[in-house]
């Protein structure tokens, strides 16, 4: 919102103020102003929530108080548009001093350093391995890349922080990884940081290719549970590098209202490629990579629904998957199904799905939900309403439908990914709303 107000002020030369709820103004006038926007936008603030309220409640906010100053809201609006500028509001130009972070921290006791890392929110608040220079140097032997190579610039909440190979190695040490994990973690760094919004975003990390076996990633029993070192340290490294490189701090610039426990490990697991039914290609092969390529894929989403029990003949598994998927918002038509090899076998042998793509296509054609349910999701309101307003189909037509009209929200079957994992202990599966991005070649980072 600050970006919009800044643009209007700079290009139209008129005062522009923001109206937001108090939960977000703190970020807008604090961290965002300091590291991103640079213009001290004036805000007035209404209570939260304002969406989902009856009209009378929102209208009542206008005759209520400004949450920032305690003044009547409209008095605050008038003051924000007419009040004389302060000296601070007239500052222009580059900041006099840039923030610095020394490469080495001042020597201290282990106890104090652990406390410092927690105070800075550089940890996930589980114990870390302290990144001594010796350990980081040893970690860097896991790659041929130079320590000062910039992998990407993290600017999701401002600051344009340059994430280097050395910084990733520091996080890898902290997470408890070994040098052989470093290429995987460097590939993962290209996808950092993890999801961060007012909603409870989470991520999924899928490892594909021969490296799964070389580094002993768990693809079988308990693939998604806390039973394997590689799954644990790679997933944890994503959380640590996201927080350190993104400077993500609770209630400063990280504001997921519920948060997500998935962010501790980002569901890191490997696909059980050896147990795929004939004709079902591994995830990375479906993306166009060679079977021998070592690939890391990251998805972003919020939710998963489990089958809970075994597949039943009375109601085929893909029917239940279809039903459960109708609960998802279908943002970007995205979903990811994770299923035990036994489920994949049933879907192929009993129900005739000869490939993952056939299952994705069937789900795309058969998952339905009402227009009201689709538009009732806040993420869809923020992302698909603009598409509808621009006249883009099918969103423009869907917006005109009666509430009870059924739509098929998963319009793109290629955005419905299928991953097979698990130990053939139970015909178990998850459907999730995770959107998996194109995979990253791990070997590029060796």
């Amino acid at each position, binding site marked *: *919102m600050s970006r*919009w*107000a800044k643009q*209007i*002020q700079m290009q*139209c*030369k*008129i*005062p*522009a*103020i*923001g*109206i*937001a*709820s108090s939960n*977000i103004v703190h970020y807008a006038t604090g961290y965002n102003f*300091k590291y991103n926007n*640079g*213009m*001290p*936008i004036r805000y007035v603030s209404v209570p*939260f929530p304002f*969406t989902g309220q009856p009209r009378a409640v*929102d*209208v009542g*906010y*206008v005759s209520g108080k400004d949450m920032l100053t305690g003044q009547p809201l409209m008095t605050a*609006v008038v003051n924000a548009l*007419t009040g*004389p500028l302060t000296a601070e509001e007239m500052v222009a130009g580059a*900041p006099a001093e*840039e*923030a610095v*972070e020394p490469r080495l921290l001042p*020597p201290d006791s282990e106890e104090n350093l652990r406390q410092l890392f927690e105070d*800075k929110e550089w940890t996930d608040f589980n114990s870390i391995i302290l*990144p001594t*220079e010796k350990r980081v140097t*040893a970690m860097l032997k896991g790659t041929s890349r130079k320590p000062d190579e910039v992998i990407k610039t993290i600017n999701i909440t401002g600051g*344009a*922080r340059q994430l280097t190979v050395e910084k990733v190695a*520091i996080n890898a040490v902290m997470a408890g990884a070994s040098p052989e994990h470093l290429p995987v973690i460097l590939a993962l760094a290209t996808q950092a940081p993890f999801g961060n919004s007012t909603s409870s975003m989470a991520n999924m990390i899928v490892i594909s290719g021969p*490296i799964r076996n070389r580094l002993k990633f768990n693809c079988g029993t308990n693939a998604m549970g806390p039973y394997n070192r590689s799954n644990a340290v790679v997933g944890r490294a994503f959380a640590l590098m996201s927080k350190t490189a993104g400077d993500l701090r609770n209630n400063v610039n990280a504001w997921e209202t519920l948060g997500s426990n998935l962010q501790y490990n980002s569901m890191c697991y490997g696909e059980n490629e050896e147990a795929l039914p004939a004709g079902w290609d591994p995830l990375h092969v479906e993306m*166009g*990579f060679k079977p021998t*390529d070592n690939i890391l894929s990251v*998805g972003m989403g919020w939710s998963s629904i489990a089958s809970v029990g075994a597949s039943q003949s009375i109601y085929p598994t893909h029917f239940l998957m279809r039903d459960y998927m109708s609960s998802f918002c279908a943002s*970007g038509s*995205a979903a990811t199904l994770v299923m035990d090899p036994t489920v994949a076998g049933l879907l192929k042998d009993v129900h005739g799905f000869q490939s993952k793509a056939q299952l994705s296509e069937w789900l795309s054609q058969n998952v339905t939900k009402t227009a009201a349910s689709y538009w009732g999701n*806040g993420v869809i*309101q923020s*992302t698909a*309403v*603009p*598409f509808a*307003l621009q006249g883009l189909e099918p969103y423009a037509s869907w917006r005109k439908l009666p509430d009870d009209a059924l739509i098929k929200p998963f319009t793109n079957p290629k955005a419905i*990914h299928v991953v097979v994992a698990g130990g053939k202990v139970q015909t178990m599966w998850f459907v999730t709303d995770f*959107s998996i991005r194109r995979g990253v070649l*791990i070997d590029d980072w*060796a």
Partner: protein
Amino acid sequence: MNRRRMLALLGISPALVTDPPTFARTAPKAVPDVSSTGGEGSITVMNPGIAGKLATRVPLAPPLDSLQGKKIYMVNLSWEGPDAANYLYGAMTEWFDKHYGTRTVVKVTAEGMFGTDPSIVKDILASKADAAIVGVAG
């Protein structure tokens, strides 16, 4: 709306042809000890933090002397949908008109809060608005 950003959510793009994997390194064993480089009982560790680049400061546009008879342009960013902002802006419009004889223009941006919409700026300039309000988000 930044369409590239939104379409990236689809997670699909053409595959790249890549070379065979070169990952065949024999990794060294983990270093088990803590190096002591400071005083007795103290250790030195590397800093995972990265210095953030501070934003270049931009001053606010001059405020108005008064709202009397002015035109205010209200931008509905459609955060989580356009309804809430429309409710608020409707009530604010009545209030402005009653107290200041202020005219208002309310527009829902077709790009949403996360996009950029140059047409809004053009429209503000064309309408000769004296001030703007953007919102509502949470």
